[in-house]
């Protein structure tokens, strides 16, 4: 067999890669160097004007980026803690184990947009059941969606509810795949459940935990549907995230060129920051 022929087998994969990854990125970069908008719908060349605008004259993008960082880090930490706790519960031999495993997965199986509409109804400040229940307990109506600070936590509640099951699923799979010997050894040494968790379970779960956290951080950094339906980025811009802001610029205001600039910059930032986060987590959680 001719040695060079083996490269022919790479072509199908290569074509797919070019089609779905390389071409869109190159097209986005080219679009970001144009002024395409509603009144000049053409791929003209304006150099790095859009990038200059982004870095010198668009604090709203950076505010939305830092807000996104806060929301995604907070939600993922909470999802990890709650997901790990739930996984530990159903990992043990408890009654109705299978039933609970299915119950814990239900939020993840629902459609995010539909669930967010339901959450929005729950949190409706004058007509929703949450404030109604609190009112029966003598608590004043809480401005779930109208207060700039509380609205952020409302978004966090919905995100945690929706995506904790994903973390739970990954961590439970990890727990079920752990070797039994270290736990037997710890039991023989008389280790308490707490010490067993700290010195055996948690270190063994570290590689899976890092994978789960990174996957969820990638997903959480794209948060859009929850914000879109629940608050539309409001009140004011209090819950606006990067992806929602890019959506506004691109598909509401039709500044296609500038939206491409935002998208590409955001992609670069995310690649760099997630690489750093993965390295830091590895250093912190995995001990040689």
């Amino acid at each position, binding site marked *: 067999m001719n040695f060079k022929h083996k490269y022919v087998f790479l072509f199908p994969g290569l074509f797919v890669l070019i089609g779905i990854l390389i071409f869109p990125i190159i097209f986005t970069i080219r679009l970001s160097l144009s002024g395409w908008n*509603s*009144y000049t719908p053409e791929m003209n060349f304006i150099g790095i004007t859009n990038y200059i605008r982004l870095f010198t004259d668009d604090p709203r993008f950076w505010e939305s980026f830092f807000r996104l960082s806060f929301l995604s880090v907070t939600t993922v930490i909470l999802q990890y803690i709650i997901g790990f706790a739930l996984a530990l519960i159903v990992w043990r031999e408890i009654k109705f184990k299978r039933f609970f495993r299915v119950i814990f997965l239900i939020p993840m199986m629902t459609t995010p947009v539909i669930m967010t509409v339901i959450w929005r109804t729950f949190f409706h400040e004058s007509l929703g059941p949450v*404030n109604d229940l609190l009112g029966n307990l003598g608590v004043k109506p809480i401005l779930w969606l109208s207060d700039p600070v509380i609205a952020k936590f409302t978004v966090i509640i919905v995100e945690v509810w929706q995506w904790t099951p994903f973390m739970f699923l990954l961590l439970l799979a990890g727990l079920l795949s752990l070797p039994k010997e270290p736990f037997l050894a710890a039991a023989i040494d008389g280790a308490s459940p707490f010490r067993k968790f700290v010195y055996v379970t948690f270190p063994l779960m570290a590689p899976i935990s890092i994978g789960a956290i990174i996957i969820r951080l990638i997903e959480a950094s794209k948060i859009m549907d929850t914000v879109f339906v629940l608050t539309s980025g*409001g*009140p*004011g811009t209090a819950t606006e995230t990067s992806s929602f802001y890019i959506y*506004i610029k691109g598909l*509401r205001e039709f500044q296609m060129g500038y939206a491409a600039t935002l998208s590409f910059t955001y992609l670069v930032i995310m690649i760099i920051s997630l690489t750093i986060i993965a390295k830091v987590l590895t250093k912190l959680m995995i001990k040689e």
Partner: protein
Amino acid sequence: MKTIKTCVTALISALLVFSPVAYADKWSDQFPHIKATGDIPGECSYESMSKKNYKGKTLKINTHAVPVMGEPTALHAEQFAKLTGAKVDVTHTPAGDLYAKAMVPFQAGQAPYDIVFGFSNFINDWKRYLEPVPKKYVEMKQMQDVTPSHIGIASWDGVMYQFPVDGDRHYLKYRKDVIDNPKYQKKYKADTGKELRVPQTWKEYGEMAAYFNGWDWDGDGEKEYGSAEVMKKDDLMYAAFYSRSAAYSKNPKTPGGFFFDLKTMKPLINNPGFVEALTDWVAATKYVPPGGINFGLGDEIGSFGGGQTLFSFSWDDAFVAAMQPDSPINNKVGAAQLPGAMKVWNRTTNSWDEGFNQAPFFVWGWAVGVAKKSKEKEMAFDYLCFFANEANHQADIGIGRFGVNPFRNDDFKADVWTQIGWDKDIAQSYVDTLAQMEESKNRVFPLRVPGTFEFNAALATAAAKALAGQLSPQAALDEAAKQWEDILNRVGKDNVRAAYSVGVAMEDNKL
């Protein structure tokens, strides 16, 4: 012989007299939507459409979400399909995405939709992609009754691009059973020393709304609130802000622009008039229902129409919803022009002119056009003509949630409204309000320039920041003005000026 002659004459006379009724019954039996009037003869009536044959053809429509405009679009699509044999696909899209959903294929040279619904202020951006309304439709009888201001809104440089299906303006709605109630008038006077009356100024509006906020003033066991307003960013709130600003900023002594100074193209939206309006609006967050800061148009209609608030101002929908027979406040509401102000900013002297000023806002409304690249233009225009035929129009304007509002001279007659159960004085106050706005010489028209969406979005974001307490009114509007300058530089001042001059001419009563 004489008897036979008499009988034949009587029969013919009876047929002549009763034929329109029999005619109407024939169609209203099949289409109960028009049961009040039956079919009304015309070029696009039910009878006329039934003679068209579009079997095997498909009409694709992109419209707003149900119910506002989405529901009548779907209803008339179903009727049109039954009458003509056409297949009609209706796609429903949220208000904020209507612009892009049409623009993306427009710019790509495609026509996934034959008919696109949007807002009348999109006209400048959309007109190059829309087919002008053909002469035969422009000259039809049903079009001749459309008011000149709404013909103007649907047209550009004398060419009609948008088919009139809706007429819009913002005005005040109030609870008549409270404002006209002697018991409350006495109580209000005793507590505040002021008269309880239809608010003449925004300051009065605020005082009354604050007074009637948070207690059960209609005895239904629920708390009521001062005002329901569209305050949600990206949900038409910029229009509400312009309504609140008009009285403070539209000075009849300083023609030449409300949004910009036409000569210099300097944005005016951060002048003291607009700042005063935004300051009032920030205060209004204290007298809206809980969560009112997130009210979109649908919430506002539901809130006022459901009897939750004393005041509201926006399009006709909330008023018509409140007047429907199943409404808890049926025949308990009144209409009036938007409140005025006791001072108005004069940008020439850079000072306030003292004295009462009032300026109606002819806000943009629903608009619809046919894509230039559509392969079914004739069918598309027939559908639109059918949508707005006299029978459908009369039925549609009486249903608040439909979002179809008066735009024909006939709509400004009180009888049209008393026929559907409105009290005579309410119907009269309603049509008088609309007519006064048509006659006003100090009107504000919507911004219709290239990049309209960008300008309005920048303003809405700034106003939303002020409402949420993120920025002071002055800082928020300074931020918006700076963004308007940036947009002007990107679009080109001369391009915007050329388009804006058309709106200014309408405002200055030169068109």
